[in-house]
């Protein structure tokens, strides 16, 4: 079974986010870049499926050269090969543009399943996966916490997390699945894995290689335009609840919640 994993590199979740002077981007100096946490689950699931059914796992990334680090990490975990689309024309590409680039890569590949993270923890849009499934005309199941594949490899049964429960969705393959945390526990890359990854193929392509029109990507092709990026509003200074004993503090807090905030 051949599986494609679309992967993004994002700032580590412990990063402080600073806004650039132009107010339209974040400051990327001193950012620690990591594989998107949900994509780690996608890679792990792909490897488990490969271990059961055989086949190949191909990692696809879109972005600048540094993204090769995240792709190499996935190769070190056990994926077979990587493809990076790196092109200066991609600066400012939105979700739909990214999905177009991915679709252009994928149209030449044979696959049974595409796995993505449920969202990037940078832009938090959760759009590329469903955009891509639509462009490819294949079914999608998003926010998946459990995945079962029929013995003959033709049908997937995916547990999709919904508010207060789950939907179990059946889809014929090929399908696109987006991974939620809890789907699995991603493995760490082993030292031999890291050594092997250095020799695995990692193709770098430009949009011209893929036949993508520059007008469809980058800022000029973006349907969503950022007007400005702002910091969160500061919260007003809070009140420390004083008291001699835990009991006294708890009583005061209860009356503050009831009488001052009128929230309980």
């Amino acid at each position: 079974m051949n599986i494609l994993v679309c992967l993004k590199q994002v700032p580590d979740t412990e990063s402080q986010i600073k806004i650039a002077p132009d107010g339209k981007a974040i400051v990327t100096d001193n950012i620690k870049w990591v594989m998107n946490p949900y994509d780690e689950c996608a890679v792990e699931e792909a490897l488990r499926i490969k271990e059961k059914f055989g086949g190949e796992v191909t990692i696809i990334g879109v972005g600048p050269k540094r993204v090769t680090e995240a792709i190499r990490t996935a190769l070190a975990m056990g994926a077979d090969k990587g493809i990076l689309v790196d092109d200066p024309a991609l600066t400012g590409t939105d979700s739909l543009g990214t999905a177009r680039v991915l679709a252009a890569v994928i149209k030449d590949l044979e696959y049974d399943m595409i796995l993505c993270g449920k969202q990037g923890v940078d832009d938090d849009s959760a759009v590329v996966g469903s955009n891509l499934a639509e462009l490819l005309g294949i079914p999608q199941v998003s926010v998946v916490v459990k995945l079962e594949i029929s013995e003959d490899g033709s049908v997937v049964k995916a547990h999709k997390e919904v508010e207060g429960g789950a939907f179990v969705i059946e889809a014929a393959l090929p399908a696109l699945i987006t991974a939620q945390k809890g789907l699995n526990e991603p493995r760490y890359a082993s030292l031999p894995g890291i050594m092997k990854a250095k020799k695995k193929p990692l193709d770098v392509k430009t949009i011209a290689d893929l036949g993508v029109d520059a007008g469809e990507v980058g800022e000029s092709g973006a349907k969503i335009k950022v007007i400005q990026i702002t910091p969160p509003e500061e919260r007003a200074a809070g009140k420390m609840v004083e008291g001699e004993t835990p009991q006294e503090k708890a009583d005061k807090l209860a009356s503050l919640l009831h009488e001052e905030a009128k929230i309980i």
Partner: protein
Amino acid sequence: MAQGIWIVAEQREGELRKVSFELVSEARRLADAMGQPVAAILLGSNIKEKAAELGKYGADKVIVADDDRLTTYTTDAYVSVIAQLAQAQEPAIILLGASVQGKDLSGRLAARLGVGVAQDCVALSIEDGNLVAKRPIYAGKAYATVTYTDSVPQIATARPNVFELNEPDESRSVEVIDAEFSLDDSQLKTKVAEVIEEAGGKVDLTEAERIVSGGRGMKGPEEFAILEELADLIAATVGASRSVVDAGWRPHADQVGQTGKVVSPNLYIACGISGAIQHLAGMSTSKLIVAINKDPEAPIFQKADYGVVGDLFEVVPALTEALKKVL
């Protein structure tokens, strides 16, 4: 020319979800500013009687798509119906809930219509006839204000619990229209095999009005009983920090933060949570934050409206008792 604001109402088991009314309320405010009508799109089976409820919050008309294949949400069927309606009637704006359903639906619908979508918005306005949306990025460590180019309709999803509900107007009448659509079974490639409801029917964190959350300071999974007790008393949902989930004390579905749920309750009580940046990012839009922690230097106190420095194993049970008296 594209006209009007649509909202996609959300129902589960035939009951409208609260976000549907939040969407109608916000759409009414935007539509009044534009001098345009609000239509709600309602998909389901035997669902027509729910249309009047949407009218009370401000919908001028409700377009009902009634079909057995629309009983429970599936991407294929819902996107197909809404795309057909949008292509035929050309609304200027379509709003959906930033729920699991709305996020799944909006991305696919946007790609089918070749337009952009602004996801998980916390503020919406109209400038020069275009929708302008403010949305958290990096789980709320920053906010992006975005608009659209070359997008008709302009699609956005609204974060649950953020947009204010209109006072329902019982006297408001609403025009109910049967949607014209066709569904081709060969296009429906996914089906819902089973719906699993979580035991106890607790409110999901993303929809909860009150949350009691526990962190590393809880010391172990069994100690969450004191949080459950407080939560039961005040009708809250119990959440957890990432370290607690990573330790296996609570399921991932309970995690609040950048790689868990991003929440906006009216009341968030953080117990034994120090306040790692990825946790603060996920809960700092809560309306009122209470922190209970042993360590007076814990970063959570920077975000708290009320802070209690103390042993949570003493303070939390005492708080539960004290609240029993005032309730």
